[in-house]
Every structure is written in structure tokens, then in C-alpha cells.
């Protein structure tokens, strides 16, 4: 198998607020491969958004501090990269789609200018016009990005050896040339009448429109890794479905590695190849989506699935999970799920269970094997 494009190793993040500190993410490991989608699912407050923002180092530090671990992107540990060099990784290296579409676009600029800016950033980096990434262990090279994408076939072929000429041409590119490329991306995200939309300001657009434009902007930079942090939760159900279909198509076409974060099990089941279930800042179960959802091996996953209303089972009362998400400043000792767990044993209060493979001997690191952080995972299928 190929190298992971993004390798998160034992990442821990702490928030310090006043005198207290909260472990928002504890010892999380993940691997992302080109063209594959990893889903992260969990309740509000489980640390999934923190994880998403921590990867491109978007968390304000302070109050957040990266307590340990590595975020290796193409051989470079982003945790050690200086703040000045971070922008070089963002956008073309790691792209992100945010949860809130309403305020994610700059109200002062027209849609055209905002999408064109993203495209321009990619152009300049492809041409080597902007300095490439120098920090970390291995120099970062943008040319290694997979560039065989739908989007690139839409634009004129890029001539690497005539870089200087290209810069000049790019500078001289008329607005109408740029317009064509921006229009292609707006069509890519299924925007009707993109010609009109281009010249509008964000406040003149609906939430669904804005979210599509955000997606178009993220895609137009052709990132190697795309982090989608609840990209659909703020949208209407019908638009949600459209956007999801769109993203799935794009995943197939564009060989981008995607980290898809959602609290919605159905959305994850539809989009992800593998899924990690997060609870109180930890990944408690990990594995292929079908495996995890049909044969959960962690009592939390089981309860989560039971609490979720499915499309097939609409009759009968919805079941709620006992207890609530623990306060991160007062975590229980041992397994963090133990106060709510039906299988709880004294051992669970003493020791933190490791993420062990369901089939003994399978390699967990690499992210393909089904694993669960429960001492009694074999008993989980017997739970109601």
C-alpha cells in the first residue's frame, strides 16, 4: 500500500482556561490515504472539531496547546513547523471545509474574488512563484501532489519549464480568463446560473449556496488532504443530500484524502471508507465503516448506534443513552466511558484500555483493521 499522505500519531491537545486545563484530544492516531475517506463520529464536545482544526494548526495557541504527538504531512511534522511556514501547507496541502457556511465567506468581497484568490494561490505555488515549504525534516515539494484531477483538466495545461513566462502570463491574465476557471469550479459544485452568482456578495446568497462556494474554493486549490468539519450540518436536509452526493463524486474523481467529521452516523455511513468513533477526546473504536456499524465492538459505539434513528426503523420510541458526556476537567479514572458503561468492571476504573484489534494479530497502525478500546470487546455483541 502507498504511504499515508497524512499521518497523525498520538496527538494530544489541551485547552488552558484560567487555572483549569482540559484534555480535548488524547492520544489520537489516524492515517489518511489518497482517494480514501476517513470519518470521525462522536457527540458534541468529544473533541472532533478540535482534532480537525489541530491538523492544519488552526487552533489559537493559547488557549490550545499541542501536548504531544506528531502530525506528519508528506514527511514533515506540522507540529514543529513555525507559524510563518504554516500558510504554505494550508490550502494546497491541506484544505478545509468548515461547519458554518453563513460567516465563512468574507462579506466585503464578491464571490468571484474569493474563488479567484484560491485559484491564484494554487497557480503561484504550482509555478514555484511562492516559496515552497522548507521546514521540518524533509523539504516539502508541491509537485508531488497528485494533480490528475477533473479540475486540472479544465484549465490550460501547466508548463513547468516556462515558469517565468507563466508568471508573466498569469499576471496578465484578464479577468475574463480567470472568470472561466472560476465558473468551472462553480459548475463543479452544481451552482445554477454561476454567471450571476459570480458578481454577488455573500450576503446575497443562501446558506447552501455559500457552503457550495466554500467547497468550490477548497477544491480549487486541489488539496492533497481535505478536512470536512461537519460540512453539511448547517444545511437543510435536501441540500445536505445534494452536497453529500457532490462530495462523493468528487472523492472518486479527485484523488484527495478526506477526513470527514460529523455527528451524523448516516452521513458517515454514506461517505466514509473507515470510521473512528470518538469519545471524550479519544478514539474508542476504529475500522471499516461496514464493520464498525454492523459489528460494533465498543459499548459506546453500540449505544450510539442504538440511539440513532435510522431510515429503516421509524416506529417505536427513540432510545437515549444513559448519563452524559463527561466534563473534560473531571474525567473518570481508567476508561473514560466507565460511568455510563453496562459492562463496567473494576478493571475499567483502574486502567485505560488500549486500542486493540478485534481479530488478534491484525495491525492496527495503518488504520485498516477493526479495533476497539475496550477490555471486554468480545462481550459487546451480546449487549441488547
Amino acid at each position: 500500500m502507498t504511504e499515508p499522505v497524512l499521518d497523525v500519531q498520538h496527538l494530544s491537545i489541551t485547552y488552558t482556561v484560567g487555572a483549569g486545563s482540559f484534555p480535548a484530544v488524547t492520544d489520537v492516531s489516524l492515517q489518511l490515504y489518497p482517494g480514501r475517506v476517513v470519518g470521525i463520529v462522536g457527540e458534541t464536545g468529544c473533541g472532533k472539531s478540535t482534532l480537525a482544526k489541530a491538523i492544519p494548526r488552526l487552533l489559537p495557541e493559547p488557549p490550545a496547546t499541542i501536548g504531544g504527538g506528531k502530525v506528519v504531512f508528506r514527511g514533515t511534522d506540522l507540529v514543529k513547523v513555525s507559524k510563518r511556514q504554516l500558510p504554505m501547507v494550508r490550502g494546497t496541502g491541506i484544505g478545509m471545509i468548515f461547519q458554518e457556511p453563513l460567516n465563512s465567506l468574507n462579506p466585503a468581497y464578491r464571490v468571484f474574488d474569493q474563488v479567484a484568490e484560491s485559484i491564484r494561490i494554487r497557480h503561484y505555488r504550482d509555478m514555484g512563484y511562492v516559496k515552497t515549504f522548507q521546514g521540518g525534516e524533509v523539504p516539502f515539494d508541491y509537485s508531488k501532489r497528485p494533480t490528475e484531477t477533473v479540475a486540472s483538466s479544465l484549465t490550460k495545461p501547466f508548463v513547468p519549464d516556462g515558469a517565468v513566462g507563466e508568471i508573466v502570463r498569469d499576471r496578465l491574465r484578464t479577468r475574463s480568463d480567470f472568470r472561466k476557471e472560476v465558473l468551472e469550479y462553480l459548475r463543479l459544485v452544481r451552482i445554477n446560473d454561476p454567471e450571476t452568482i459570480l458578481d454577488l456578495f455573500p450576503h446575497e446568497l443562501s446558506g447552501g449556496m455559500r457552503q457550495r462556494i466554500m467547497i468550490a474554493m477548497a477544491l480549487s486549490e486541489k488539496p492533497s488532504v481535505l478536512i470536512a468539519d461537519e460540512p453539511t450540518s448547517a444545511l437543510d436536509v435536501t441540500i445536505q443530500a445534494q452536497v453529500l452526493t457532490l462530495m462523493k463524486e468528487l472523492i472518486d474523481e479527485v484523488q484527495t484524502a478526506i477526513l470527514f467529521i460529523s455527528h451524523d452516523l448516516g452521513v458517515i455511513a454514506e461517505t466514509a471508507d473507515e470510521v473512528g468513533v470518538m469519545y471524550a477526546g479519544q478514539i474508542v473504536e476504529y475500522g471499516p465503516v461496514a464493520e464498525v456499524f454492523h459489528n460494533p465492538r465498543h459499548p459506546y459505539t453500540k449505544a450510539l448506534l442504538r440511539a440513532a434513528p435510522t431510515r429503516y426503523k421509524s416506529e417505536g420510541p427513540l432510545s437515549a443513552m444513559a448519563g452524559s458526556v463527561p466534563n473534560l476537567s473531571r474525567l473518570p479514572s481508567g476508561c473514560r466511558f466507565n460511568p455510563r458503561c453496562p459492562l463496567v468492571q473494576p478493571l475499567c476504573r483502574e486502567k485505560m484500555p488500549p486500542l486493540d484489534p478485534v481479530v488478534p494479530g491484525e495491525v492496527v497502525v495503518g488504520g485498516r483493521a477493526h479495533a476497539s478500546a475496550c477490555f471486554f470487546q468480545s462481550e459487546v455483541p451480546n449487549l441488547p
Partner: protein
Amino acid sequence: MGRNPSDLIVFIVKRLVQLIPVLFGVIVLTFFFTHLDLTNVCNEWYPHAGAATIHNCEASVNQPLLNQFWQYLINLLHGNWGADVYGAAVYPAIAAALPATLELVFAALFLMIVIGIPLGVIAAQYSGRWADHLVRVFYLSGWATPTYLGAVIAAVFLGPLLGLPSGGEYSTKVVPFVQYTHMSVIDAMLAGSLPYTVDALEHLILPATVLAFINMGIATRMTRASMLEVLPLDYVRSARMKGLSEFWVLYKHALRNALITTTTVLGITAGGLLSGTVVVEEVFLWPGIGQYAYTSIGGGGSVPNFAGAIAVVIIFAVAVVAANLIADILYGVLDPRVDWR
């Protein structure tokens, strides 16, 4: 959908119409406030005038106030703004002095924008840290410096220290070219004379800096406040995530929005800038309206000029109104959410 440039004209015309009652109010107020104590008028304003002038003055003062006002209004609209004790007409004097003041004020405004606004951005970027405190001390000291103190220190100490002149518009009394605009730098540039342009700029630097330093606080403070409001917003994070460097995130995405509020505040500084010219122009011998105001009011023991003082008050008020109008229009242009209709 979208905004139509033709609507902008409607937008501006609407604002202009709204100004008419304000301008009338300005004239009314100025007239009545300067005629508050009628028994005093002739002695206060014409201390060294001859008996004839005093007599004329008393004769006009003894008329009913409304008649006087009516007469004044008619004269004002005819461009007859009265004369000083020596008979020099006010209107031409003010018309001649206006360009110099505008030049000074715009130079100060320019400095406020290119220095004050970036300082506000820096303060917001490092809010609560030493850079923020330093910026605060800087703009508050400008705020706390009385204009005359700043002007005197700049003229007497800073000028010689930096080798900058601190009096007048040019080093020579007479310049060998036609002064079309009566703005020193622009005239020198129009004449194509580099030495005179440099000379005019050197003369402009100190008074403009003093004026800018004293009024900068408002711009810096407002920029800082707006930036602090804008920086945590989602679109700033989006810009960062696009891969833009911190400089572009701050100055293209965040500041563009923060500027919307700063603009309106810059309109308000017009009053402070104009008030400042009264002292700054006097200290730097700048031949503008400020200096004219200083002498008209009887500053430094000069002979007061009643008609001139009234005219200056009205002119300054009109300038403030105009500045706020421009700021208002700029706000409408800068903020795409403002509907022009």
C-alpha cells in the same frame, strides 16, 4: 440584485438634501451665539477701533436681532461676509487661505491613515501584549498632548533637530511660479520644480505630523476595536485556511472589513483636525484659515475681527458636515450590505 452605480447618485443626493437644514442651523447658531451679549459686542470686538466704527457698530447692534440676522443672511449669500477693523474684506481672505488649510489637513489625514491604521492592526494582532500597550501609550500621548504644546515642541526642538524648517510654506517669500491651487506642494509640482517641491514638503512635514499625532488616537483605537471584533470571525479563519500568509489575512481580509467602521470615525476627526489648525498654523506660520481664525478671534493679543470670526466658525462647521458626508458615502461604498436605494 446587486448595486447599481446610478443608485449611488440617488444615495448621495439624498444625503445632500438632508444637510440643508443642518447648514441653516449652523448659520443661525453661529449668528446668535456671537450676538449673545449685545452690550458687549462693540467693546469686545472693536477694542481699538475709531469712534466712527464703534458708532456704526452700536447703530447696527441697536436694531432688532432678527433684522440683523436677516441682513447678515442676505449678505452671506451674496458673498459679502463683512470686513475687519481695517476694512479688509473677509471673503477673499478666507478663499485665499482655504487651500493651504486643506493641504495641511489632508496631509495630516494621510499620515493618520498610513500610520494610525496599521498601528491599530498591530495592537489588535498582539492584543494584551507589550506591542498593544506600546501602541496605546503612543496614541494616548497624542490624545493628551495639547495642540499648542505639541506644535511648540515640534517647531522649537524637533525642527532644528531634524533639520526641518518650521515656518511658512516655502523657504523663500516669493516663489518664481504661478500658484494655481495655492497648495504649496501641488503648486511646486505643477511648476515642475523639484527643489521647490522638496522644499514645500519639508515645510509641510512638521505641522502635518503634529496635527496627525494629536488626532491619530481615534483612528488607531477604532481600527484596533474593529479588528478585535473581526479577527475571531469565521471568514478570517477561512482566509487563513486558504493558505494566505498572515499579512494578507490581516490586511486584505480582516482590515477590509474593519475599515468600514474606521472610515466613519475618520469623518468625525475632521472637527479635531480643523480645531488643531488654529494653533498649529499660528505656530508654524502656515497661511491658512486656522491662522486667520487665530487672529480673528483676537489670539495672542491681536485685534479681533468680528465678521472674520463668524465666517470662520461657519466655514469650519460646513467643512465638518462635508467630511461626515464623505465618510457616510464612503461607508455606503465600502460596506456591500448597505442598500443605496
